[in-house]
């Protein structure tokens, strides 16, 4: 009797304790009605893994399409070939490596502070890897939607030229078709307006100056790409364009960054009124920078809360070069977006996004609302105890160029894509773990 009792008890416990380790596994991982065996990612710098102002091996390795491909490999995904740069600090194609944080002593200061500098490792020469193609990653930094169809573009853009089959003959689309894609991600269109915005929305001075692409051209280009890919049998996911004012590039330098004592304000008032600029007045505390504005007396006015001062503004010139506080040195147009320019940019983004949503619906693609998602960065979010926002450096989501995400930011983007794919194609692709990826790296 006793023996039976004890043996039953013992068996019960052993079975419970050892036979099933924590049996919490997701019920199934499934590709649903999508085929991830030949996945191709088409896009611009955001797709390429561009970060900290350059394309580097590390950035490509932490790109969101690579993260997605890693997750796809659990549900029948195939090889995802990336045209890797050589290891190093990368390149921005005009001779500079990525930024890193370093301790620097700003002009006029006796203490060191953390600030982005070019990586002392130096620029990584752009290698040509065309012979090892075709590639699954067609993320081309700088590419606009209309560039994806231009054969000439593969000769002009060094980031595409380095791996395309025939520079001047290939297009981003023909490169993508080389892998006969069964699934694609398409996130293009940001640069059709972003390049213009990053340049301060200045009127074009040459044919190479960034302009805003006409919205019908964007619609036609994106429709053609999707039509071609889907005719070839592929399914896919398309993302819309984030509101550019969500990123730190446009939000880091405060419009009223001129902090004055009463004495200094009095001195400036005298200077400006004697220069015939009495509409510009100064007071103790925070004041708006003086900026160029052709519609104001003397072609300048003070910035107000609707103006965005760009991160490209040389900080030492603001600090020690009297930029923005001298009648001789108003901030140039290229460093400021005014309320009208912002409205123009947002208007175009809205038009592009209407087209993108229309394409997604027409071709039954999974749709990622990146415009809304980037807003969550701007308002701040918490993930597993990590708080993130769109603040430069401390926010953790955006890299040191103020536009492109950090690896952790890209991981969240990958998960937004996966979420959209799972809901459209009834798949259960597991999410990426963003805590495995870093935010901004700090020097010790």
């Amino acid at each position: 009797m006793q023996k039976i009792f004890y043996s039953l008890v013992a068996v019960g416990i052993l079975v419970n304790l050892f036979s099933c380790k924590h049996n919490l596994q997701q019920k199934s991982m499934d590709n649903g009605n999508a085929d991830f065996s030949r996945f191709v990612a088409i896009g611009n710098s955001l797709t390429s893994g561009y970060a900290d102002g350059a394309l580097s091996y590390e950035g490509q390795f932490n790109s969101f399409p690579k993260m997605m491909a890693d997750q796809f490999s659990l549900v029948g995904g195939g090889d995802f070939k990336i045209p890797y740069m050589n290891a190093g600090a990368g390149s921005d194609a005009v001779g500079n490596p990525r930024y890193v944080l370093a301790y620097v002593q700003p002009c006029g200061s006796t203490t060191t502070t953390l600030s982005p500098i070019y990586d002392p490792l130096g620029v990584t020469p752009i290698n040509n890897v065309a012979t090892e193609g075709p590639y699954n990653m067609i993320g081309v930094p700088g590419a606009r939607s209309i560039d994806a169809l231009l054969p000439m573009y593969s000769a002009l853009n060094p980031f595409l030229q380095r791996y395309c089959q025939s520079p001047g003959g290939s297009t981003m689309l023909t490169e993508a078709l080389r892998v006969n894609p069964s699934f694609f991600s398409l996130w293009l269109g940001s640069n059709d307006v972003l390049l213009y915005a990053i340049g301060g929305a200045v009127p074009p001075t040459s044919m190479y100056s960034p302009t805003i692409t006409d919205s019908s051209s964007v619609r036609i280009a994106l429709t053609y790409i999707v039509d071609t890919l889907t005719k070839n049998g592929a399914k896919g996911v398309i993302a819309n364009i984030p509101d550019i004012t969500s990123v730190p590039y446009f939000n880091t330098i405060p419009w009223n960054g001129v902090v004055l004592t009463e004495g200094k304000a009095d001195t400036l008032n005298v200077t400006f009124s004697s220069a015939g600029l009495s509409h510009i007045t100064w007071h103790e505390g925070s004041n708006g920078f003086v900026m160029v504005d052709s519609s104001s007396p003397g072609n300048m006015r003070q910035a107000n809360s609707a103006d965005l001062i760009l991160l490209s503004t040389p900080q030492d010139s603001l600090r020690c070069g009297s930029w923005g506080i001298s009648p001789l040195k108003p901030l140039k147009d290229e460093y400021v977006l005014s309320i009208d320019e912002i409205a123009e940019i947002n208007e175009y983004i809205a038009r592009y996004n209407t087209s993108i949503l229309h394409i997604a619906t027409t071709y039954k693609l999974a749709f990622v609302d990146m415009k809304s998602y980037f807003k969550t960065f701007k308002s701040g979010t918490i993930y597993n105890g990590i708080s993130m926002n769109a603040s430069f450096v401390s926010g953790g989501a955006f890299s040191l160029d103020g536009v492109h995400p950090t690896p952790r930011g890209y991981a969240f983007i990958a998960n937004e894509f996966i979420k959209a794919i799972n809901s459209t194609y009834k798949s259960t692709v597991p999410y990426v773990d963003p805590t495995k990826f870093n935010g901004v790296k700090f020097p010790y």
Partner: protein
Amino acid sequence: MKKIGLLFLFCLALSLTQKVMAGGFKVALQGQKQVGMAGTGVGFARDGATMYYNPGGLSFVKQQFNLGVSGLFPSTGFLEKGTNTVITSANKMFTPFSFYAHADVSKRIKLGLAMYTPFGTGIAYPADWSGRYILRKIDLKTVFIQPTVALKVSEKLGIGGGFIYSTGSMLLRKDLPITLANDEIASAELQGKARGTGYNVGAYFKANDKMELGITYHSKVKMKLDDGEAVFSNIPIGLSSTFPENNTFTTELNLPAELALGFSYKLHKGFTLAIDFNRTYWNSFDSLGFDYAINTSAVTDAKSPRLYQNSNCFRIGAQINASSKVDLRLGVFFDQTPVPDGYMSPELPDNNKTGVTFGGTFRVDERTHVDVSLIYEQLPDRYQRNKETGLDGTFQTRVIAPGVGLTYLFQKRMTKRKHY
């Protein structure tokens, strides 16, 4: 026949329970005999552990000495929502212990000393788990020391009480979302010792030869931790003013009060059933916060909400006097979690639980007994999204706790039917 029936019920209970300790970070392992009967003991005074379960009942327990220790092996698994990787916490063994000794001072008065470990928790998660910025490791221990006096008011009624002096230690470790250029990650560790005081009172009533009842009140114990160490590691020099070295902190942890009612009934010669009800006033634990000596933008005194709720526990245990040398025990308990939805955190992946217990006493000689016990609990999987940290996933916890104890009677038993 009865025994077979009971056995059947027991195996059924075992197969029905999914997972099994007491709610919150209470550790219900205060006496080996009581543990074997699902932790009942308020209305069934058997040994020195009655000083914990019901100091009033001590009036009816022979002078003796009891020592017990359990090995507590918890195992927690976590599956983050939408992912496919299950992590398992490091198996960390704890050894809750108890010590009781008491002697007659007069015919009506007994004096005793109790030492036990009623609260504690400990979990170490893998270094790269996705909640590393919330918690890597927690280790919370308490030891209560309780001098006790019991007064036999009449042959049927006993009352008793004890003063509690409590000592404890706390260790918390988590990573900070700051990555160094060499890929090392910053971390924070809080460590310190705490103390507090409280009391434990109870009344015990022997209604007749078969039925006994009791009521006990365990007071709240406010543990005060002064001069704890806050150590931040791998902090970039540029952020050293935000995470100052050699910081200290103070904190308070309110260990909850508990009201316990118990009842036992001798159904048959050699077969006793005991039922306990516990209500634990967990609402004393509404937040966890640290008051740092040096505050910065990142090191603030902000409190993290816990909002624990008062919880109930039902315990049913049985004792079978199998032979003159052997007693067998079993029990089942149902314990409500105090952790509300939206506030579950990795420091205590709690849930409502069902536990089964087994126990036995082997009388080596007239005075020396060896007690054994075993608890097995499995908590049903609990899916939660924490409102503060955003941690979103399912926790699964199992606990197994075998224990062993020694009883030594200071005088020979007069009759076999008396309590020992």
